């Protein structure tokens, strides 16, 4: 299959590209970021998804399948540009897919879609609406992009669209939202709260995406690794020290004195869990994560050893 990966220079996308190439697919990719070490056989275009040059890739190369991984979180892009990348970018992707006869699209989304609320069910099913959005406005554009991508299911019924809501990655190379929160030697917690975290190892994400592609998945699916683990267990078992601080104090300290930079609203994500029910995906693809929670934590501990004496 001729597969176009958008956001191919990202850590997981690179692994996916290599895996698909090895599996005999023809792989091309687009990213604004460089990928100088791209393996031979992968056609890399350094362009912005929203620009005409990206449309040219669709027009000239006519991919059969598109994997959209070119969305960003507040950790990497701040302000209005993030919303433009996530929403205008996603719109451009689906427009091009329709105009140039793409048969299958995978939208790679996030489980934070569901939001962290005190009164929501522990295990979220795909049929639930996003909650507690007002607490974390910087997630709104990602939630909107997820919902927008799902409209392709009825707007472009001739295309096989799947929206995947994937939990936090943890492992090697140790990037991602949760990993960046665990970077320091001491990790702040909200005193009196210890939410479950649902994680998946990077290689398992690649396996899940490959399965979704090859099984021609259609619909909305939660993707998770092993069962969730309490935040305190992840912190301790990765060799870090949990530092429980009262919520109001922690809110004032964020971004200062070496504390992780995150919004006050994002504190709800270390108070309440976001855990997903992934039965639908497992039944549709036969996916089973190769890495259990203990192995994921050990891989991360080895890949991201403790820094110096600072936070």
């Amino acid at each position, binding site marked *: 299959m001729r597969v176009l990966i958008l956001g191919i220079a990202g850590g997981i996308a690179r692994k996916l590209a290599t895996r698909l190439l090895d599996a005999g697919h023809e792989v091309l990719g687009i990213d604004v970021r460089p990928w100088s070490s791209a393996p031979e056989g992968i056609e890399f275009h350094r362009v912005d998804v929203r620009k005409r040059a990206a449309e040219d890739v669709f027009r000239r190369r006519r991919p059969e399948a598109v994997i959209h991984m070119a969305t960003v979180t507040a950790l990497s892009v701040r302000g209005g540009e993030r919303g433009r990348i996530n929403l205008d970018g996603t719109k451009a992707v689906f427009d091009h897919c329709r105009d140039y006869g793409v048969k299958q699209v995978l939208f790679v989304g996030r489980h934070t879609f569901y939001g962290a609320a*005190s*009164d929501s069910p*522990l295990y979220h099913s795909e049929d639930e609406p996003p909650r507690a959005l007002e607490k974390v406005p910087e997630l709104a554009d990602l939630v909107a992009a997820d919902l927008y991508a799902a409209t392709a299911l009825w707007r472009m019924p001739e295309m096989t669209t799947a929206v995947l809501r994937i939990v936090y990655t943890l492992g090697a190379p140790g990037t991602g939202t949760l990993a960046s929160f665990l970077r320091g030697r001491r990790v702040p917690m909200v005193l009196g709260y*210890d939410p479950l975290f649902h994680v998946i190892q990077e290689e398992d994400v690649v396996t899940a995406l490959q399965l979704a592609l090859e099984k021609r998945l259609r619909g909305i699916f939660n993707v998770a690794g092993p069962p969730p683990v309490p935040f305190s*267990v992840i912190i301790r078992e990765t060799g870090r020290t949990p530092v429980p601080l009262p*919520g109001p104090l922690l809110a004032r300290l964020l971004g200062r004195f070496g504390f992780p930079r995150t919004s006050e609203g994002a504190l709800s994500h270390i108070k*309440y869990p976001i855990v997903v029910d992934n039965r639908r995906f497992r039944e549709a693809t036969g996916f089973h994560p190769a890495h259990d*929670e203990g192995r994921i934590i050990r891989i991360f501990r080895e890949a991201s050893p403790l820094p110096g004496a600072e936070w």
Partner: protein
Amino acid sequence: MAREESIAERINRLELPFNEFGVDPYGISKKHVALAASAFAVLYRYYFRVKCYGIEHVPPRGRAMIVGNHSGGYAIDGAMLITSLFLEMEPPRLGQGMAEKFLNRFPFASLWTSRTGQFTGLPEHAHRLLEDDRLLMVFPEGARGTAKLYRERYSLVDFGTGFMRLALQTRAPIVPVGILGGGTAVPTIANLYGLGRLLGVPYVPVTPYLLPLPLPAPVELHYGEPLTFSGTGDEDDDVIAGYVAQVKSRVAGLIERGRELRHQRRGP
């Protein structure tokens, strides 16, 4: 339970899928359950001197719903019920209650309810736990039940009907239980709803000695034979209400039997 057997040994005999960190897929933690069980075991044995009857009616494995009356201004009844399932059953089981929504908003309450399997009372939680063959505890009187005053302590307020639809949908047997003594332990003379709103709780119970701390009144638990209803859970409200009335009358009967036994013991 043999007194020599430690709480830790009983925790190890809980038939829950704990991982290498001692945590199950719901976040129930061996460490936290052990700490809570140790504290509650002291209250159970020496403070409330709980007498437990009919524990053999609780299935040793598989899904079941324990349905009881509320007794006492807050969760003493539920705590003692969980403790009886843990201490008196062979093998021990973890009862999982359906907690009031406000609990998960408070620090520490959020942590401890999560780590001991006492989740917010949502139909999604009840359904999932039963499908997973867990032991669910339900108090269909809800917060209106805990708000009963001292003089109303042996009465029952209206039962909700959601539990019956869940039991039918999941084909779960219902084990009725009558709880006595909580209303004497926390002799509520009034409930302050306004203060409760300010604090973010349903109400604050007031006792003759003002503080809502429990007195060392003896508590009794009377489990009855399991009831099974067949259906789909999609029945009309009046059909469901009829089933609920049967459960309610069984619970009322268990409370009545408990009171009679108590009179006989005190008898001439």
